């Protein structure tokens, strides 16, 4: 039992998370406190869960792409586009209905959400086709959308921050269900759907096979192109959902800044969660843990009293360490140094 626990893929991410939480609690005595206020739970931990939800969503989509040896750096732009589409379609005007001032959305909210998700999925399709059919390198194919997509988001919002005045929409990012933030439920639902897709259909098996050995996968009769396109579509969709949650949370859509630098955090979350950048075996749960780690890191840095800007430096350091550990040459060199110093000592 202990053996399986020790060898479990989620071991190191879990330990890291617990460590960070412990450090946080050490500096912040009221860290673990939970209060019941205004009909829901309230506390630092709840905060972390809430803020990590969008990143977890994007990270899950990114996990699948990375598992097929790809990358998608356009997710930040897709987040902004989805947010912009939803905000535009909902808008929110103040009208008087039956003598009461209520907000009315321009289009039915369901339609707006569906449209935003459709656009996000289309962005993913675009990326997938460039990679699978045209044969472009993933970093370049997604770079194009990263550049142009930001412009599209700004075009949609007219460079302004579009404020949404429609209470039902705020529920996505601000609402609470059973005391916990609704965003967490959204992330959990997406996780569930993806998990079921990966384990109840052949998709998980196929993605891993393609990532581990594309030549063997091709020979075994896998339709890599189709699967590659699917994977990028999922990534786009996940980014779309994240965009909805974020815009709901801040009650607005900011074409300039929404999702900025999110792709980097997402890649970091995926790597922290144990999925290698070289593709192959992946862990959706690991990526969710990775997102939590990043969010807890931000919170920890804040509670220690260190300027939050050091966040970026710490993230860079973490990426370097994880990268090096995943490199076979580094591990070989490390072994060599350890052996040599051992020899010197004896």
């Amino acid at each position, binding site marked *: 039992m202990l053996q399986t626990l020790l060898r479990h893929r989620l071991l190191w991410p879990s330990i890291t998370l617990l460590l960070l939480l412990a450090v946080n609690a050490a500096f912040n005595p009221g860290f673990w406190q939970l209060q019941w206020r205004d009909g829901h739970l309230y506390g630092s931990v709840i905060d972390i869960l809430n803020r990590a939800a969008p990143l977890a969503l994007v990270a899950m989509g990114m996990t699948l792409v990375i598992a097929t040896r790809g990358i998608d750096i356009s997710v930040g732009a897709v987040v902004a586009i989805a947010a912009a589409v939803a905000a535009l379609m909902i808008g929110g005007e103040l009208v008087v209905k039956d003598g009461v001032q209520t907000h009315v959305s321009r289009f039915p909210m369901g339609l707006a959400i569906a449209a935003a998700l459709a656009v996000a999925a289309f962005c993913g399709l675009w990326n997938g086709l460039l990679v699978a059919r045209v044969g472009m390198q993933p970093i370049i194919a997604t770079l194009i959308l990263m550049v142009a997509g930001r412009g599209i988001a700004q075009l949609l919002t007219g460079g302004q921050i579009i404020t949404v005045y429609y209470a039902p929409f705020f529920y996505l990012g601000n609402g609470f269900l059973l005391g916990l933030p609704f965003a967490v439920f959204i992330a959990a639902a997406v996780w569930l759907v993806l998990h079921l897709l990966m384990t109840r259909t052949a998709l998980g098996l196929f993605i891993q096979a393609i990532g581990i*050995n594309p030549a063997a996968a091709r020979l075994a009769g896998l339709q890599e192109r189709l699967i590659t396109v699917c994977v990028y579509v999922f990534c786009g969709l996940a980014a779309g959902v994240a965009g909805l949650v974020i815009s709901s949370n801040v009650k607005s859509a900011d074409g300039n800044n929404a999702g900025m630098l999110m792709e980097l955090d997402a890649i970091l979350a995926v790597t922290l969660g144990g999925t290698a950048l070289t593709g192959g075996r992946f862990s959706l749960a690991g990526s969710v843990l990775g997102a939590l780690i990043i969010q807890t890191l931000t919170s920890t840095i804040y509670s220690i009293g260190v300027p939050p800007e050091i966040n970026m430096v710490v993230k860079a350091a973490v990426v370097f360490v994880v990268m090096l550990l995943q490199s076979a040459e580094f591990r070989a060199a490390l072994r060599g140094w350890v052996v040599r110093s051992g020899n010197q000592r004896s």
Partner: protein
Amino acid sequence: MTSAPVLEARGLTRRFTGVLALSGVDFRLFAGEVHAVMGQNGAGKSTLIKLLTGVYPADAGELRLGGVPVHPTSPAAAQRLGISTVYQEVNLCPNLSVAENIFAGRYPRKGAAGLWRIDWQRMHVQARALLARLNLEIDVTRLLASYPVAVQQMVAIARALSVEAKVLILDEPTSSLDEEEVNRLFGVLRQLRSDGMAILFVTHFFEQMYAISDRITVLRNGELVGEYLKADLPPAALITAMVGRELSAAVGRNDNPEIAAGAPLLEARGFGRRGQLQPLDLTLRRGEVVGVGGLLGSGRTELARLLFGLERCDSGSLFIEGQPVRFDNPVQAIRQGLALCPEERKHDGIVAELSVRENIVLALQARLGLWRYLSRARQQEIADRFVHALSIKTADIETPIALLSGGNQQKAVLARWLATEPRLLILDEPTRGIDVAAKQEVMNQILVLARSGLAVLFISSEMDEVVRVSDRIVVLRDRAKVGELPGNSSEQAVYHLIASGT
């Protein structure tokens, strides 16, 4: 001929994680001679080349160049010593010009302050002069990629000349050349030989080897079989030396080959691909085991890949049960009931980090598609069935396949294809790296499958296996089909056909 060898190796040994690739090999290369190295798969030819050219260090033994011991630690070092290599893939940079490729790393310079400035003028003049020595007159300022492989090889040779190499090693230089280009290359080699160059020539092509070589060294299983002068080693003797056993004159056990009746399952007419396989005809019937006999490099794997859709044929046609088909990818071939167990287990076969179970059900699942996912229970059932049937030794079916021994990995890949219940199974070296008992199991399994109605195309370098189990033997040589023999032929007969080519 000449006195002391230019390059001499004694007792060269090299081990790769437990496998003894080369063991105590002696080798002599004389100036003004073309020396061929021959051997089957695993004989150690490529290891020998890599040791001579500094890609790997030798674990034991010594190397002497002009009598002086040398230890090249890298290709660059070997080059500096005067050992130049022209590889099969012409390892030059296609995006640079011809002149640049010749002089890369050793550009002629000019300029007082600039010991840094490259003297392009002088480089072009010198490049042209070098190529003239090879009777080649081309525009040296054009990109290397704009010339065919034959010319690119000449450029590689010119590069070797520019470093004033004493030893020129050519590793499979003729694989992508047509007859005229081969003759031109040989003309150049003969000229270099008369200029006193020591040339080491590695090839699979019998005819060519006999046409150009003066001396032949035969390797087998990492050991030296012998060094012979060409005149002393006729083809039959060469084959014996390479294969290493007294070739059995006994008739194959299959002495009542079932000549399967009925319409052919697969028929290939004039089927081939330029540069890989000469157009050939092939017929396969249900219940038949057709063996493909030939030496390494004769085109056996190319045939398998073409039939399975991994490469596109550019001549001829293919019929499955009388219907014309065209396979542009494996998915189409699999849908028609074909299956291919590949030669390169590690590269094309196993998906390393996945479990034995996942590897076994992979092809079947691929054919079923995304949605008809085999339940875990069903997967386990299938995997268990084949683990039992093929006696795959594994702790359990969840073990990552990479941890299994080579032989058991091979069985798992075979299981993968058997699970798809194909109509035609192509087996490319299915018994390579498997222990004797396992080999026997696999062979028996093949017979059982054939008797149950499966058509089997069986490719193996172990001629005794091919002869033992086949109903018919298609013989390949130098990428072309030279004939067919009935299943009860002896090994000798097959090798005779290969050697004579008629």
